[in-house]
């Protein structure tokens, strides 16, 4: 046998039976001991896999840059509709302000 003392007596039952795909992929894809194989297979591009399969968010910063509303989970805050309605309200207020200002100018011209 070997000269390693690895405490062979007890082995846990590994791998939770109902693990989801992301749980498994994040372990089998770029973890484990990587040794050079004869056949070059580029597996490690998890970023690309993320874009294809939408499994992971690379990081909070990346998520924010990619426009994923990571922390802003209120539907009313994060949806495009809500943002648009704020922009719309802003635009209306500006128009009204301009209208008022031009009226004031007209009045002072008299």
């Amino acid at each position: 046998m070997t000269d390693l003392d690895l405490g062979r007596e007890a082995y846990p039952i590994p791998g939770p039976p109902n693990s989801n795909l992301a749980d498994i992929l994040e372990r089998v894809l770029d973890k484990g001991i990587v040794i050079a194989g004869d056949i070059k297979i580029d597996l490690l591009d998890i970023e690309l896999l993320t874009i294809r399969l939408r499994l992971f968010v690379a990081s909070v910063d990346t998520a924010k840059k990619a426009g994923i509303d990571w922390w802003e989970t209120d539907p009313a805050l994060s949806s495009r509709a809500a943002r648009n309605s704020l922009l719309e309200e802003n635009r209306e207020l500006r128009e009204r302000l301009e209208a008022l200002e031009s009226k004031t100018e007209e009045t002072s011209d008299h």
Partner: protein
Amino acid sequence: MTERGPGQAPDDSALYVFAVCDAPDPAAFGGLPGVAAGQPLGRLRFGALTAIVQTVRAADFTDEVWQARMADRDELERYARAHHDVVSAAAACCPTVPLPLATLYHGEDRARQALLDETERFRTALERTAGHSEWGVKVYTADLPAPDPSPSPPRAEAPAAGSRPAPGAGLAYLERKRGVQARRERRHEDALRLAETVETAFGALSAAGRRLRLHAPELVGKGHTQVLNATYLVPDHRGAELQVLARTLRNTTGARIDVSGPWVPYSFVGEV
């Protein structure tokens, strides 16, 4: 399960290596399909260690085929689970170092030589993970319900389109916007603090820990946001303690904390 003798696979075949084991029990792999239907799993001895291998069609394992496979979620899942099942079966019977998906050689001699060259790394990894398992810890915060559309304290009525704005509408708008920003920052800070609290607590009973990528919102599902996806190398005798800690943290933080495991320590053999 077959013991591999010396020899070279035919030109149209390749040898897929799943894991490296210390004295695996051949009976542990019965019935597992591996990554190639109809081909038995085999053991390849190199020095004092043994690799779990399978002969596959080389045409099924070119880079081109794999790139296509990785674009197909079902196909990828099939291969990932097949690989994981063999690694898990190995780890259930003996000390095991998993290899990542798709490590392939042109034949047994090539594989044996490559594995022999890495013997020291395998030994280091086996020693490091002996008597330990990997446990995944994910933390989620519950999403807040949508804000009340009729806010209090009462503010100026929104003007009907085309009419003059009610006095104070602009101020109310600014205050509302400031409130949104402040709430967002507060929740972001709370989430970071929660993640750190959980990470520190689990780190204290682990030999090592690392953060994994956060899962995409589609995967998490509606109603929750994942704020921590971490994994820990935990001594087997502390497995029960880990579950108690998870329960305690759930009670003190109110957060959803999912624990998965025990896993073969995939995440803790790569740095050796």
